[in-house]
């Protein structure tokens, strides 16, 4: 398939998109949490893949390369969104904008007190606050169910590093989501 893609075959590109679109969309969605933004970024991923397939040397699996492009695009999108949010916040502080853009207060209830969808949202909000590599590792492991070896390939790192990233991510989540005494 790679050879056909590198020759510019439209049929091969169509096959690639149809084969991987759900996985790539879900990965991006789990990092961005917005279906519209996920669709946009997933499209960008396939456009980039089409435009740069000539650089693919086959050192990793094609799916690994797709995950690499998808996670880096999603994180880039997150960084831009955060920068925009910060700019809007400072603009509102300096009075350039009349809109109120204060951060929504985080009422972090422990998971045990919440119902299904709420539990998921609270957990997702905490996952989104993890450092980017921990976030990617956690998402790929527990939402996309990739193996440790696959995650190591996507993050271009070693197996012990992936273990450490996941350990720290879980520890942080447990710390934030642990029921506190007196929290009823």
């Amino acid at each position, binding site marked *: 398939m790679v050879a056909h893609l590198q020759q510019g075959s439209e049929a091969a590109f*169509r096959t690639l*998109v*149809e084969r991987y*679109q*759900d996985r790539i*969309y*879900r990965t991006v*969605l789990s990092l961005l949490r917005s*279906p519209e933004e*996920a*669709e946009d970024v*997933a*499209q*960008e991923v*396939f*456009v980039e893949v*089409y*435009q740069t397939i000539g650089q693919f040397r086959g050192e990793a699996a094609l799916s690994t390369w797709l995950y690499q492009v998808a996670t880096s695009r999603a994180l880039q999108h997150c960084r831009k969104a955060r920068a925009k949010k910060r700019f809007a916040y400072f603009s509102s502080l300096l009075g350039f904008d009349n809109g109120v853009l204060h951060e929504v207060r985080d009422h972090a209830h*422990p*998971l*045990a007190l919440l119902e*299904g969808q709420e*539990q*998921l949202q609270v*957990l997702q909000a905490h996952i989104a606050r993890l450092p980017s590599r921990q976030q990617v590792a956690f998402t790929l*492991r*527990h*939402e996309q*169910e990739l193996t440790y070896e696959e995650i190591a390939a996507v993050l271009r790192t070693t197996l012990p590093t992936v273990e450490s990233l*996941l350990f720290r991510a*879980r520890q942080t*989540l*447990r710390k934030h*989501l*642990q*029921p506190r005494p007196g929290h009823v």
Partner: protein
Amino acid sequence: MSNSPLLPDSDQDWSDLMRQLQAGPPARPRSGFYTRVQARLVADTAVAPSWWPMWFHRPAYALLLGALLITLSGDGSALRPAQKVGSCESCPDEQPQRELKR
């Protein structure tokens, strides 16, 4: 060692928890995804590449380059030293300044 049954320890338990919380069919892009990717690809390639370098598209860099060109071109007046203090071309009676000699 978790105090809560909802906060698992093991790797597999976390995957199970995520699966359990994400009840319902797995998320999918809207139908016609490939058509939209293709349209985007066509739109991307339709945009003629600019022969200006990317950095030139930023107004600050363009202004800086303009200022640099003005400074370096022409008669170089911007680089000429300032006139001597005390000399006045519009004052004909003024005596040329003499250097103080001991």
